[in-house]
């Protein structure tokens, strides 16, 4: 049985949203429109109105393309929505639908689209700078647009899976509106997440489901030229362990030993600056000045700022080492995605095995 009230509610939403786009030129409203068309389609199919569901499917597809940035919002979209609204009403009244009927209403001239920067309206200077920097180093810039209902508390909002995904896939640059404005905003609203990532649209689509707009695609990184020798750094404050590793690693490349995190980070940055980056850092977690987790984050930040892509060959391999029995710490450190870990006392064969595999990838001959 057709629940006419339910359909009428959805039609009212549809009319309100299409008029709002026409009035404001704000195509973010297409997300609301898509959802209403989607609900109408599934309701029509559930009510056995298969012909109507087919028409709605066409409109849903068109709206999906607009919300994903694959097609612009045009007068034709407006007419398509208007035609479908009439078709639904005809079905509700039991009239025979006229699929080829011309658009029965006139529309005002669409307002010009709002002026926005290449990256999106209303970005703070620091956010724009982050966009320009990411663009300059060849990272992709993307925007996820996601429909929200008001009412999520700040903690929930900031811990949503979309935030976790962005953290794993790249760097969040801005959220519009920020939580404070979202909390004061309308009952339903579109929130935009702007982020940079070295990954392609296809790679991101494996994980993300919401509409993803490509503002600029990542540029492929040139493969690193093969080197004559590996550059290896050991950051270890215990002299016995440090020297032992240093002497063994010297047999496999240019090895340096640093006893503090600050010294290690300075050398690491100098390597990048001079065009002779380190290939491997063996990192103790408990150092007198900095924690190993902090050093690893700094290393990845530094690489990110220079556009060294996570999947590229140029990224430095970082192996952390920690004490046996400190498994909680190890689990925490693994969140920073090191390339491997060793448990003290160090199994030198394991370490040499890791160095040998790196050597095969990066060293000539």
């Amino acid at each position, binding site marked *: 049985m057709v*629940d006419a009230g*339910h359909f009428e509610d959805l039609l009212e939403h549809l009319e309100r949203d299409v008029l709002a786009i026409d009035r404001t030129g704000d195509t973010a409203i297409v997300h609301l429109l898509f*959802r209403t068309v*989607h*609900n109408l*389609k*599934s*309701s029509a*199919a*559930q009510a*056995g109105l298969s012909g109507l569901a087919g028409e709605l*499917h066409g409109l849903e597809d068109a709206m999906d393309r607009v919300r994903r940035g694959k097609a612009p919002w045009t007068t034709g979209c407006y007419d398509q929505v208007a035609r479908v609204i009439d078709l639904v009403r005809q079905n509700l009244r039991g009239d025979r639908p006229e699929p080829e009927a011309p658009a029965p209403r006139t529309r005002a001239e669409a307002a010009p689209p709002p002026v926005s920067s290449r990256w999106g309206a209303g970005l703070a200077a620091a956010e724009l700078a982050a966009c320009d920097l990411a663009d300059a180093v060849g990272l992709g810039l993307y925007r996820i647009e*996601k*429909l*929200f*209902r008001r009412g*999520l508390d700040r903690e*929930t909002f900031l811990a*949503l*899976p*979309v935030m976790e995904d962005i953290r794993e896939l790249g760097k969040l640059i801005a959220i519009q509106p920020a939580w404070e404005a979202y909390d004061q905003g309308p009952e*339903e609203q579109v929130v935009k997440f702007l982020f940079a990532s070295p990954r392609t649209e296809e790679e991101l689509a*494996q994980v993300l*489901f*919401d509409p993803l707009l490509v503002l600029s695609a990542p540029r492929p990184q040139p493969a690193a030229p093969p080197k004559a020798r590996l550059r290896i750094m050991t950051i270890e404050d215990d002299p016995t362990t440090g020297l032992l590793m240093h002497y063994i690693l010297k047999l496999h490349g240019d090895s340096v030993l640093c006893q503090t995190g600050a010294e290690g980070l300075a050398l690491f940055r100098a390597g990048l600056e001079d065009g002779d980056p380190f290939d491997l850092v063996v990192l103790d977690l408990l150092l007198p000045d900095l924690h190993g987790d902090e050093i690893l984050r700094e290393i990845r930040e530094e690489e990110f700022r220079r556009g060294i892509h996570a999947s590229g060959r140029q990224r430095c391999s970082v192996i952390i080492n920690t004490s046996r029995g400190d498994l909680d710490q190890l689990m925490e450190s693994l969140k920073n995605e090191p390339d491997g870990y060793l448990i003290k006392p160090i199994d030198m064969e394991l370490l040499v095995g890791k160095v040998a595999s790196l050597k095969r990838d990066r060293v000539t001959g």
Partner: protein
Amino acid sequence: MAEKVKALVVDDTSFHSSFLRMYLSTKGYEVTVATDGVEGLAAARKDDFKLVFSDIEMPNMNGIEFLRSLKRLPAYASTPVVMLSTLDDEGMKQKARTFGAFHYMVKPFSSAKMDELFAKLK
């Protein structure tokens, strides 16, 4: 009296959640309805559901995000989750399977589809 088995339905359209509530009640389930993934996940943490249905297109947290988050909870690692969608798309079905869905049901619902699902669940 034996306690009823609990099922969770996550769908923002009351039209659909009402159908599932009705159908599952006739099968002897006690049904809880959530209207998005955030609510669904909160309900799943509080209760112990033996069967979960989730729509895909939802505000706040979509069905795929909900499925991934739910499957990370040890209590739900082997709980059957049925994804619901109007989209009869192989890519989406594959994605749902990858993230641990037990079944992908294309709307509209019908008793035949539900019977087929319950035969698979046995």
